[in-house]
């Protein structure tokens, strides 16, 4: 048995500990150094609520790192210092049964840390959870609907967009996040713009963001919602306020005239995720050359009611949105058709 080889074991223990310490260190340091994402912190925040979460993360990290280093150091230290060496395998260690004061100390010490963490979270909470109470005119309201497997945005003037949201810079944007009664749970999440909030059938949830720097911020659905959960991508393009205003007004006019990009957005966001960008098929059957694409009535029937395994992706769409899709398919049939 192992007891026989005294010195061998000792060296093995030391070597093993070096491997252990080295691999742990490498595992923490190397990815953080190589990572282009800021390493062991959440995505670089671009909105005050995300900043509040980021600060909370950093504050908690101070204590986490402290306890991590404390426990792992004591563990390695004790294991090295009190290894057997030349002692008999079954020789007693110190027969200590406990120490009440120490017990009290390491019961109370975590309590203090947890109180500090809890207090800081509640201190940051209003800045994270509360939508800035700007006068209603200065705030943009967007209704976000999670559906299998796309995001639909509705602006106050009736403009509809799919998957790609446009938002004005420097203006608080309040989001009402919902999912239709006949759909499933999704979760709205753009990491740089704050935490996620679930889109639950029968419930209206809210979240918000306010971004100063124009740019594109991406995210995706964070709650398993079915086969194409992985393709349920979302993005927010933040435009300078004036540019956004003119986009919204222009889109309004185009949408009425049936010339907006909504048709293409719908094809790409709603249909193509299962049927392929040029209708080549995938999870859904191939649509290239399918007569249904040119038959507005049949298409509407399928889109609004679903068929077999296909969900009713277009239940509740306005006629305007339905026409946008049929017009688009008529003008530029996918795959050249």
């Amino acid at each position, binding site marked *: 048995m192992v007891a026989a080889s005294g010195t061998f074991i000792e060296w093995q223990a030391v070597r093993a500990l070096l491997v252990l310490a080295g691999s742990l260190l490498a595992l923490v340091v190397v990815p953080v150094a190589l990572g282009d994402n800021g390493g062991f912190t959440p995505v670089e925040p671009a909105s005050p609520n995300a900043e509040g979460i980021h600060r909370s993360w950093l504050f908690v990290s101070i204590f986490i790192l402290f306890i991590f280093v404390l426990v792992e150091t004591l*563990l390695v230290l004790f294991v090295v210092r009190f290894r057997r060496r030349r002692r008999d395998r079954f020789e*007693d260690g110190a027969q200590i049964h406990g120490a009440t004061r120490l017990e009290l100390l390491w019961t109370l010490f975590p309590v203090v840390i947890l109180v500090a963490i809890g207090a800081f979270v509640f201190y940051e909470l209003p800045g994270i959870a509360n939508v800035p109470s700007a006068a209603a005119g200065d705030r943009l309201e967007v209704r976000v609907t999670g559906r299998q497997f796309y995001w639909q945005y509705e602006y106050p003037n009736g403009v509809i967009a799919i998957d790609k949201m446009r938002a004005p810079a420097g203006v608080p944007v309040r989001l009402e996040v919902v999912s239709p009664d006949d759909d499933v749970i999704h979760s709205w999440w753009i990491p740089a713009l704050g935490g996620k909030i679930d889109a639950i059938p029968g419930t209206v949830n809210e979240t918000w963001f306010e971004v100063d720097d124009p740019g594109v911020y991406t995210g995706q659905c*964070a709650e398993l919602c079915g086969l194409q959960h992985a393709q349920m991508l979302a993005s927010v393009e933040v435009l300078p306020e004036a540019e956004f205003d003119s986009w919204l007004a222009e889109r309004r006019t185009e949408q009425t005239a049936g010339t907006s990009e909504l048709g293409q957005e719908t094809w790409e966001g709603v249909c193509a995720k299962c049927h392929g960008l040029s209708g080549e098929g995938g999870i859904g059957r191939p649509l290239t050359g399918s007569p249904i694409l040119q038959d507005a009535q049949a298409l509407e029937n399928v889109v609004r009611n679903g068929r077999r395994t296909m969900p009713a992706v277009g239940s509740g769409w306005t006629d305007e949105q339905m026409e946008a899709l049929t017009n688009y398919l008529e003008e530029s049939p996918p795959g050249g058709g």
Partner: protein
Amino acid sequence: MAVSPAPTPVPAWQRGRVTSWLVTTDHKRIGLLYIGTALFFFVLAGLMAMALRLQLAQANSDLIGPERYNELVTIHGTAMVFLVVVPILAGLGNYLLPLMLGARDVAFPRLNALSYWLFLLGGVVLMLSFFASGGAAQAGWTSYPPLSVEQAGTGQDLWILSLHILTASSLAGAINFIVTTHSMRTRGMTWTRMPLFVWSMYIFAWLLMAVLPTLSAGLTLLLLDRGISIGPWDIQTHFFAPAEGGAPVLYQHAFWFFGHPEVYVMALPAFGIVSEVIPVFARKPIFGYKAVAFSTVAIGFFSMLVWAHHMFTVGMPNALNGFFMVASMIIAVPTGVKIFNWLATLWRGNISFDTPMLFVLGFLSIFTIGGLSGIYLAAFPIDWQVHDTYFVVAHFHYVILGGSVFAIFGGLYYWWPKMFGKMLGETLGKWHFWLMFVGFNVTFFPQHLLGLDGMPRRIYTYSDESWEGYNLTSTIGSWVMGIAILLFFVNILRTSRTGLRVGNDPWQADTLEWYTTSPPPPHNFDDVPYVTSARPLYDLRRRLREQRGARTSL
């Protein structure tokens, strides 16, 4: 104790090599059946995980389609919880509880056999559901409605059926553990002289009793929402359908009221194993026996008050979020007490690094990380950021795989000589440990970073190529772990052929199971010493030493 009565004669057909296992009511055989079956499911569910990792190794991979991926995600998670970790702990508990208590068997041996066969049935139903029409369940191990109500085919129904069977099995086992602990302790074994592993199995059992009925209720409502036909009646309810006034979130409450304590069902017995192994390999008594035992009770109690920390993103009022944050943080206190007591047990010890101890030390270093990442998740605004991402996947694998499963392997190496009379090979054992330890960290540490960078869990593919490096690293790690597990089975085979017989008590341990032969006879003990402390065998050895005037061990 009196010499046990002569065994009642059993019919010849029940004495065959196979039939004797089929009809057995011996807690040791049932324990081994549990462990063996759970290890078999461990291999299946582990292979599923390796397949999932293979799919994620590259961006835009189409190795496994979304349908098969969702099936594997669902069954991997369900199987690892219900068919691997819980039953393997139940198996160890079955084997060890009567031996540690100095008892002849568990309180209800036939119920015990029923509990095992139900477990096997539930496992077979779950695995065969891959062949159901429409394939296996695809809504994740949590199976939230409406998604789980919507799924066509019978896979989801079989998933519910399987969990109902497993619940019945667990309840039968739990009743047995509780009654055995209350009524079968040998002379002198007061509550504060019970081995800490028994304490942990006792709380394990109470937790199952307390929370499994809630799961059963939730699953039954889910089944009714999906619709059932009994004779001429078609029943379809709408508990979770908002169009009819139902609430999908109700299911989440039912599920997590069970689901969070379930984490401790998997963790507490692992803590118990650690509390048995450390003292033996440090040659010390556990530091603060009462603190460790009481913290087990405290964790069990508080674990029932934290369930909604899995639901911080459903839009609860922040007052409720705050309550569940504070309750979750409170659990960190008794957990910290355990960690510090284990560390203090190492202090001034005489530490040997045999494989059981290596696994337990590995547990300590990994579980600490899993516990600490849980603090981030308890702080609910931070959870809004990392919830349902790979950060959470990393967190719970640090707790369950790096925590519980490492401790379980430690326990298997530790009690193997008791169960089979032979020691598992040390060289292969050490290879197993080191490959597992490195493989584990390589697999799961990068997943923290993926989650922080925005990668959600349960996606079958991703197009962001900056995630590829971490994902590939993670996949490589999972295959290193696969090799480690393979070595474990090679070790078992080699030990069964050529392993050395090592006597009744190779570790010079402290608890009663080491007093009897290895393996123990069907009736466990010819006699049981009067128990004077939590370390009856240590007391015996000391008395013998004093009588002989000898300096060292027997």
